[in-house]
């Protein structure tokens, strides 16, 4: 019995290593010198509530802003970072996304009931694509939530863009 358990340990280690390897991008992001962010897609009727289309530029701009603050890419959208040396040739990483879940929630419920009632949520499936080849380098889900009292659902955009920026930093 004890011998079987000992045998299981290396199997589990190999399995977890394989799973972790799948979660890493095919190419580390430091191979890219520029980041472009596209407006995310909102597939109609696939989310619980319809997300206002006017939020798409807000999300895009927030992600761009967070990516600029990382100071990793020499160019993010139309901003050339003076703190990052310009490369001899540019290699562009494109961020695309699809909103897979959106709950508008209720500010009234957040205020009156509390304890997580009426929470707002945005979940996006992000795709990092090599612009030159069109190859998807990495796919990952990111989300933003609003739970607190007196917060508008739009505040979830901040959480979402922060998480996307974290993914970029972690895979640099």
């Amino acid at each position: 019995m004890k011998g079987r358990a000992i045998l299981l340990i290396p199997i589990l280690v190999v399995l977890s290593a394989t799973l972790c390897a799948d979660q890493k991008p095919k190419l580390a992001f430091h191979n890219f010198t520029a980041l472009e962010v596209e407006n995310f897609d909102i597939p109609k009727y696939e989310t619980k509530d319809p997300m206002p289309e006017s939020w798409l530029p807000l999300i895009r701009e927030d992600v761009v802003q967070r990516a600029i603050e990382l100071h990793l890419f020499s160019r993010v959208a139309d901003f050339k970072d003076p703190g990052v040396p310009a490369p001899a040739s540019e290699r562009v990483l494109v961020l695309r996304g699809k909103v897979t879940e959106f709950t508008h929630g209720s500010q009234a419920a957040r205020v009156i009931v509390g304890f997580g009632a009426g929470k707002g949520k945005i979940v996006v499936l992000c795709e990092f694509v090599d612009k030159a080849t069109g190859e998807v380098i990495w796919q990952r889900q990111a989300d933003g939530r609003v739970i607190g009292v007196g917060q508008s659902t739009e505040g979830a955009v901040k959480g979402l863009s922060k998480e996307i920026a974290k993914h970029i930093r972690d895979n640099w």
Partner: protein
Amino acid sequence: MRAQIAILALLLLIPGAVAGDRPGALRGFSALELLEIENTRNEQGQKLPDELIPDLRQQLLHGLVALHTFHRVEDHVDDAVPSAGAERVVQLKVKITGYSGAQNQAGVKSEVFLIDKASGQEVFRSPVNAQLRYDQGAATSATRKLARSIANLVRDSR
């Protein structure tokens, strides 16, 4: 005695300097034209999404017309304001200088310039910011608040 006169003179001068010659600065102008809203990234890379600019412009024009202080605002002639002979035009230029991003306490910063169209001279300039508080909504509400604040600045300068 001289010191008292000097202090009195200073007290009279200071409010004018702080207000930047604003109250009454736009008296005599009968028309207002809104120049294109400038929205470029600042040093920190902040920028209001371009998609919000047409809406901001529309809200701003709406706010300016609602003041009923100019006979003409852009192509809108206000019948409630009588025409005073030859038209004198002031141009309003808005430059977005900062944006906090979409969050619960969103904020937009701008620099507002008022220019005499005939001479090209700047009548005055002023920073105008719109900062939302806990109870207020979102980034789109911040642009509405900014438009209202700019219109109020124009109103207070008549």
